[in-house]
Every structure is written in C-alpha cells, then in structure tokens.
C-alpha cells in the first residue's frame, strides 16, 4: 500500500491541480490513456462538487487522499467540511443539480460510470466524504 495526501483551498483553479496530482501518482500503475482519463474525470467531478456545493459562499479546505492498494486498485477519498448533502440519493440522480446554469447535474453519473465503486457519506453542516475505487488493468494487461 502507498498513498499521497494533499490539502488545498476550494478555488476553482485547483481543479486542474488536483487531477494532475492524482494522475501523476497513478502513473506508477502504468495505466492506459483511457484509465488515466477516467480517473482524472472522476477527481475533477468530486473536487468541483466541493467547490460549488460544499462551500457555496466561502473558501474552505478540501482534503484528497489517493492510495494504491496491494491488489492494484486505486482508491480516492475526497473530503470537505462544508454544508453537507441533505439527500444523497437525489444528488446522485442524473440531471439533478442545485448549481444553476453552468452545472449539468451529471457529476455523480460520470463518477459512477467511470469508477468501479463510489460511496458518498455526508452529514448536514459537517461535510461530505466521497470514496471511489478503480481497478487499473494497465497497459501490460491484467496483473
């Protein structure tokens, strides 16, 4: 097992940083371009949720942990101490958004389709933790 942890402010400029950092860490699993794209997309969606929804009117802190498990699976944990999600099932529905015209409501749908597992735990007023896992077959084929 190996992991990295990063902590950054909920500024939209950090979205690109977060996915680049995870991609650099995941590179040691020798992922295909497609696998790397899927991981970057899932990170982008989860971090954007923190910026838009968890901290709607203030700048807060986002914690990101990426781990490579012994079985070659990549695990991502994205955590905030924001407002929380009142109804997780509703938030995960396609096209549902409280984010206005610049949001599509497809964030969780894309995370669900690109990752093998997506778990959302949230407490109103205390924050949200999103855990995602993706098995990396890699360019060398199945390990």
């Amino acid at each position, binding site marked *: 097992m190996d992991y990295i942890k990063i902590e950054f402010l909920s500024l939209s400029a950090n979205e*690109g940083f977060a996915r680049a950092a995870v991609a650099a860490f995941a590179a040691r699993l020798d992922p295909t371009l*497609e696998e790397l*794209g899927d991981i*970057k997309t899932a990170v*982008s969606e989860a971090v954007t949720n923190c910026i838009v929804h968890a901290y709607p009117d203030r700048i807060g802190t986002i914690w990101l942990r990426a781990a490579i498990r012994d079985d070659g699976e990549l695990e991502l944990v994205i955590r905030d101490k924001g407002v929380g999600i009142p109804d997780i099932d509703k938030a995960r529905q396609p096209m549902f958004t409280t984010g206005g015209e610049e*949001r*599509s409501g497809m964030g969780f749908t894309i995370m669900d389709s690109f990752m093998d597992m997506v778990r959302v735990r949230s407490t109103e007023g205390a924050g949200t933790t999103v855990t995602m896992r993706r098995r990396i077959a890699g360019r060398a084929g199945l390990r």
Partner: protein
Amino acid sequence: MKIYSAYSDGRLRLNLEGELDHHEAKSSLRTIDRIIDDLLPRDCIIDLSNLSFMDSSGIAVIMRVHKRMNDMCGKAWVENPNGQPLRVLDASGIDRVIRVYSKTE
C-alpha cells in the same frame, strides 16, 4: 482553454482547445454567449477536435449552446470528439439531446 470562432454564411464554428472544467466553464459560457449574440448564427458547430479534457462542466456548456440555438430556431451539434471528451459525452447520454458527429468529411 481557448475558443476559436469562425463564421461564414450563417454557420458558426466554435473550436474548443485545451481543458474544459468548471474553472474554465464560467468564462467560456460568457465568451460563447457574446459570440452568439453578436453573430446570431443559424447553425452552431461545437468542434471538439482539439479539446484534450472535459468533465460535466463541458456537458453544461454544450447544453447551453444547444438551448440558445434552439431558442432562436437555429441548430447546434457537436463534431469530432475523441479520447476522454468522447467518453464523457457517451457517459452523459447527451446524444439523446444534441447530435454528435465523431467523424466529418
């Protein structure tokens, strides 16, 4: 991200280059709105040949262009998505709302 626009005979082509995420979406929407307001095109092509990354924010941008063109009785469609942006388009099911052409002559 960069947006290049070309206009001829009622047809507007928006060429999106680089990475389209939430950070870029806000200014992109403003830029695209301004271009459409200025030119009032009949057709609007969203060309993704040079887009290397997009997330669901890109879906919102495409939906917005679709809606704006629809509101003025025009048409919008997507051309040449490949790699990661194509996978996001597929996962979103956006092709039920707007036409997506993967290859053009």
